[in-house]
């Protein structure tokens, strides 16, 4: 797995002292129908935006908790990486956005019948959020309601 040795000492110390937000109780929704009949959505925290969308704002203290809708038919090569972190290597995802936002892979799974369908819109967040309170209380509930309205059954979440 990734480990803290990837990071500079200053950041390792920060992470060691950081008050991670514990999910408690842990909500749990068992799969309601077979995957072949389920509608899937993709949720990424890689800070990707389409060319017609505003980039994530790296000047916001604690991190930009907003989200972008990414339609399922988006040309992946057009997505722009606006994640503010310089603590990881961005070259892989710029070479192949499926590495962090696997729209093409999910499309293949729909085509093969493994999953029923891919939702018409997917979600992009910028995950470098040291103060995630607004994400938990405001933006995530709003974003999720959109997927509920769409009849999404399952979601795959991919950090970066």
């Amino acid at each position, binding site marked *: *797995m*990734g480990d803290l040795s990837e990071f500079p000492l200053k950041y390792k110390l920060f992470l060691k002292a950081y008050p*991670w*937000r*514990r*999910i408690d109780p*842990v*909500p*749990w*929704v*068992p*799969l309601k129908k077979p*995957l072949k009949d389920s509608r899937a*959505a993709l*949720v*990424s*925290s*890689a800070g990707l935006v389409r060319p017609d969308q505003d980039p994530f704002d790296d000047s916001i203290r604690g*991190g930009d908790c907003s989200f972008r809708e990414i339609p399922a038919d988006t040309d992946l090569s057009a997505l722009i990486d606006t994640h503010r*972190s310089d*603590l*990881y*290597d961005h*070259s*892989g*995802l710029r*070479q*192949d956005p*499926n*590495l*962090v936002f*696997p729209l093409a*892979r999910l499309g*293949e*799974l729909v085509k093969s019948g*493994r999953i029923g369908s891919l939702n018409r819109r997917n*979600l992009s*967040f910028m*995950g*470098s*959020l*040291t103060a*995630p309170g607004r*994400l*938990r209380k405001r933006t*995530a*509930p709003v*974003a*999720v309601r959109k*997927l*509920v309205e769409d009849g*999404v*059954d*399952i*979601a*795959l*979440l*991919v*950090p*970066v």
Partner: protein
Amino acid sequence: MCNQAVGLVAAELERQGISTVAIQLLRSVAEKVRPPRALVVPFRHGYPLGVPGDADHQRAVIEAALRMLEDSSLQPPAIVDYMPGKNK
């Protein structure tokens, strides 16, 4: 931080009735934040599905995540380590 962010969004998805599985790059963070279903992958940050340009490799990771959704024996919070070729 990204691991925590997707965990928190996963929890909100489940609260609103959507089943989730979250890739995680740091087991220690997954254990602290506790997303409902976490697949811990052995890749460095920036490479959550492993290898750029390798569709088979990426599909194998996603397949392991989908199997977590199908596994009715899992209990929350469920943390599974991705082991290439072994997450059957």
